[in-house]
């Protein structure tokens, strides 16, 4: 037969049991293990949550349909608005720092200006490997008013800041933790992105007389667009789902004067302290809608859909 290199068994199989070689059957065989696990442990649970968001329930089994009541209640819930504001502020803050800073760092680290760049990359990558549960308590010491961070800032004449006690510093404190934790991975993402930019683009820019800064701005940044997009979406994802950080810094999870209260912390409280599962589900659905909308708008603005 036509099979020479691939041996005979394959063709025999094919003749004997053509059913398993039907294209759709093949696809099903490959896809089903994933889809079953995904369907059972994800879709089913998600569907459950969405259904609950249209119900009022205190306790399992005790529920009644209330239509959009939960969603209407959300609109006038001052605590939810506070949580949403904090979360948005946090996400914006992480975006403003965790995109440009790692991008510049990645570029600098690829230049001949730096000795032992990889050792540096590894060092700032270490926080990515740990969970906040593990280093969290250390942070509450470092951020204390008489802690190390303020001593350091004091060298530059900054008055001690009350990171852990002042409402308006709660989000900045969490952003600091995020910067520590995620700079390393974003540097790696951008380094890989920059490595994929063809060398001649820089050479062409150099011919045009571009200096280091212009090369960075006119070549590196625009050509890193897909990776910047990816990192942005990931950052929004992580930022909007802020949860562990406030618990680590303040036992209650709300932070000083609700300054650290995030949407997911509020969801968690509603579900597990008040046990209003329906309302909690509505919070979750709204949060998911916000994330999806943000991501779609972003992808649209960046022209992601045009490529495919």
């Amino acid at each position: 037969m036509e099979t020479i290199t691939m041996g005979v068994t394959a063709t025999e199989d094919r003749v004997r049991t053509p059913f398993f070689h039907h294209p759709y059957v093949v696809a099903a065989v490959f896809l089903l293990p994933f889809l079953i696990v995904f369907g059972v442990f994800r879709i089913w649970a998600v569907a459950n949550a969405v259904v609950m968001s249209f119900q009022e329930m205190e306790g399992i089994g005790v529920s009644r349909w209330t239509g959009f009541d939960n969603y209407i209640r959300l609109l006038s819930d001052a605590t939810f608005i506070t949580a949403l504001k904090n979360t948005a502020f946090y996400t914006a803050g992480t975006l403003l720092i965790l995109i440009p800073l790692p991008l510049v760092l990645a570029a600098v680290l690829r230049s001949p200006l730096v000795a032992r760049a990889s050792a540096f990359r590894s060092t700032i990558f270490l926080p990515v490997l740990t969970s906040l549960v593990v280093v969290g308590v250390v942070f509450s010491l470092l951020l204390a008013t008489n802690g190390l961070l303020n001593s350091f800032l004091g060298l530059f004449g900054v008055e001690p800041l009350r990171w852990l006690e002042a409402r308006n510093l709660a989000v900045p404190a969490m952003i600091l933790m995020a910067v520590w934790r995620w700079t390393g991975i974003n540097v790696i993402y951008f380094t890989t992105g920059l490595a994929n930019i063809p060398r001649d683009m820089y050479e062409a820019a150099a011919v045009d007389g571009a200096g280091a800064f212009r090369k960075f701005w006119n070549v590196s940044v625009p050509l890193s667009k897909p990776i910047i997009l990816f990192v942005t979406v990931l950052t929004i994802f992580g930022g909007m789902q802020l949860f562990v950080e406030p618990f680590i810094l303040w036992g209650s999870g709300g932070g000083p004067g609700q300054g650290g209260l995030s949407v997911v912390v509020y969801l968690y409280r509603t579900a597990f302290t008040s046990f209003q599962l329906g309302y909690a589900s509505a919070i979750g659905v709204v949060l998911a809608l916000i994330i999806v909308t943000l991501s779609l708008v972003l992808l649209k603005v960046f022209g992601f859909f045009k490529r495919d």
Partner: protein
Amino acid sequence: MSIERENPGSMTAERHDQVGLADQTEAEPVPRTDEAPHRHDRWHRVVSARRKKIVTTAILIVVAIAFLIPFYWLLISALRPANRVFADAGQFFPTTITLSNFQALFQETPILVWFANSMILAVGTVVGSMLIVTMAAYALAKLDFPFRNAIFVGVLASQMLPFHLLLIPLFILMINLSLIDTHLGVILPALAHAFGLFYMRQYILGLPQDVFDAARVDGASEYRIFFQIVVPMVKPAMATLAIIFSLEQWNDLLWPLIVMRSEDNYPLAVGITSLVGLYRARWDLVMTASVIAVVPIMILFFLMRRQFINGLGQFGTGGR
């Protein structure tokens, strides 16, 4: 494509080994073939380039130290006498150091059992998810069937709901399946990893199409193509996923906490939080156990720094 970028032979300089690339300079390069009309000018430029290098490196060293401080703090806290963990928190260099916290940790907690549980969960998740994710990714990337894109988009979209919302339905499900307090109960929901699927699909899409075409012309079945061509070719991507999956599982707290009920089934992260009592937190043990949780990951990282960094870098670029 990423495989070509691998350059195991290049040992020329530290900075090359990260992504196996030549240094493309964003900064102004030092001219090598210079006609040197003014020797003085050239000398000046070399000096200023060196000075720039020293300054940049110095700044980066300061930044690196800043990133290491929390780890240093964790370590010296673990080495302080139990009741001085906070009392001496202002001392950058501890005056008294003791290993008694480690001794207490090993005596008072089943830390090694927790450690083993973390290992079991990490390995179980990696092995299981690698198989189903790769198979599904292949189907989504290379096979043709109805609703292919809809399935893919649906999987990604459902990932955007906060996990906390799913806790209660999932918990009830686990009870019905009798999976509470079992390793399987922790592993199963982690298996169908949507981002892993996304990454693997992109990676497979990037494989050269002619290999598949050639095999199909030769009459190879899709199963054969998968196991004999795809699997060998995606091994680097699998290594990346192995790193990501094991990291996530190692550091995960919420779900294992809900599933695991008996102390002997706790993974490390859960065990550590169980030491934080409301009326009497054992901070000495918390710090010490945290050191023990961090160290193996660090060792693994330094043993396989390239895989970590290359792999995660490619994860970010979607396998391209």
